[in-house]
């Protein structure tokens, strides 16, 4: 594992499987009367959110608190950022406070990378979504949900998603979730198909490790999981499709379309859902839709990522010679 989690593309297959396996154990903490582990006691994590987010911020916060980290929430609204402070100055302020990790969401693609690599800060950087670039923990929780549903909770341990057919439908152009998912699912051996109107596909999509189709109906019968993406109206500054009604008739998932999917196939959505647009209420409320499960799994995945990044030794600062690292053998 690297020091930071910036992009799903940085993860090797073994890294990703380790995170999923660790998350499976973390999920068991949620079933206990005391949902808390002492692992990150004394570590400080800042949630640095320059963009609105409810579920990702709450999910990170829950994960940090379950691992006993000290949590500082920082949202751009009403902070020094709204007075014109730059990312660099914000970062240096956090560094001066002795922060161990920064969870950052930013509207500009590449902001987490800049934060991690510019030398402003020593902390671990975890990308919680940057512009239209990446949202790696979302991809991990999606892969986790797929592995649980398609392979099995215990059977899935140590396994990837080899040969599973995953279809992502909708606004790929503006979706960091789609980019992260394509990268991670490819690493995990899945076959990914993107389905979208040509106007909602980014330039250069043909170089991505996936198939592209404009026709949802022909793709559904050969999908093990179908992920519906939200049409991101707040990022749309041009006419990408004629009317919303036409979009939802061609690319929306309704009961008839769901019936055409294989019986074991699941419907996923990263949230927030726009009912009636990309997904009908009938599908959203069905047993095959994993939206709520994805939220629960998000906490487990984020606990796993925080543990694997922050829980162990820092290689940059080896412990003093007076206290040599013990081997497992020694420490029984």
């Amino acid at each position, binding site marked *: 594992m690297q020091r930071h989690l910036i992009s799903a593309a940085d993860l090797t297959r073994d890294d990703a499987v380790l995170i999923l396996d660790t998350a499976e154990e973390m999920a068991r903490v949620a079933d206990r009367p005391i949902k808390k582990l*002492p692992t990150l006691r004394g570590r400080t994590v800042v949630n640095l959110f320059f963009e609105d987010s409810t579920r990702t911020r709450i999910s990170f916060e829950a994960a940090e608190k379950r691992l006993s980290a000290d949590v500082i929430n920082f949202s751009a609204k009403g902070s020094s950022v709204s007075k014109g402070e730059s990312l660099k100055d914000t970062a240096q302020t956090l560094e001066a406070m002795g922060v161990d990790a920064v969870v950052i969401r930013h509207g500009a693609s590449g902001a987490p990378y800049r934060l991690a690599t510019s030398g402003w800060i020593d902390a671990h950087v975890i990308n919680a979504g940057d512009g239209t670039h990446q949202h790696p923990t979302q991809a991990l929780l999606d892969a986790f949900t797929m592995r649980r549903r398609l392979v099995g909770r215990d059977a899935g341990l140590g396994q990837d998603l080899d040969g599973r057919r995953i279809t992502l439908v909708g606004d790929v152009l503006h979706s960091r979730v789609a980019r992260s998912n394509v990268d991670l699912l490819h690493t995990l051996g899945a076959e990914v198909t993107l389905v979208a109107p040509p106007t909602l596909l980014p330039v250069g999509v043909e170089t991505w490790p996936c198939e592209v189709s404009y026709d949802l109906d022909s793709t559904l019968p050969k999908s093990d999981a179908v992920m519906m993406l939200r049409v991101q109206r707040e990022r749309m500054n041009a006419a990408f499709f004629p009317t919303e009604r036409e979009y939802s008739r061609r690319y929306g998932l309704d009961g008839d379309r769901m019936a055409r999917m294989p019986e074991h196939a699941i419907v996923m959505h990263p949230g927030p859902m726009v009912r009636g647009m990309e997904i009908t209420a009938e599908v959203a409320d069905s047993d095959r839709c994993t939206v709520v499960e994805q939220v629960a799994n998000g906490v487990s995945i984020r606990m796993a990522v925080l543990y694997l990044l922050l*829980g162990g030794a820092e290689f940059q600062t080896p412990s003093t010679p007076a206290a040599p690292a013990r081997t497992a053998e020694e420490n029984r």
Partner: protein
Amino acid sequence: MDTHDPQPLPASQADARPVLEAPDIARVMTRIAHEIVERAKGADDVVLLGIPTRGVFLARRLADKLEQITERKVPVGSLDITMYRDDLRLQPPRALARTEIPGDGIDGKLVVLVDDVLFSGRTIRAALDALNDIGRPRAVQLAVLVDRGHRELPIRADYVGKNLPTSLRETVKVLLAEEDGRDTVLLGAKQTPQ
């Protein structure tokens, strides 16, 4: 607690001396089972929790023996202590093992922790912390296959398979059929780092 993967023995253990062989281990486990029944006056409320990896196999073996003696099923589970270790920050992050608490929980029960080797006592301290987050047992006892001494904390075992006086330059390695293909306890010399 040990985190070794099944792999060929390192050179240092090729010439390691066996101190317990398979029949010895079987006898020792039978004796510990009888001791548990005696001390717990029937083992009615005993819950066995093994510490991964090899403690879990030993706990399952003890559960089988207890069942033979008392003709009742004894709840058995596992308790991963990785997240409670005091040396987490001295090493790269470790993979987690499974914590499996039997259905009825541990509240009001007599929990017997089971591990392969008792050494510094730090693993057991971590296990006691972990138990604290799971419930409130009536009492906690400790069973180990080998006690090799050199405690760093005020912890002792209630049931000991074999007391093995060792020097810090020696290694004790427990091999069990479930994980390593054979039952034996090896005493070897630690390889000095180059």
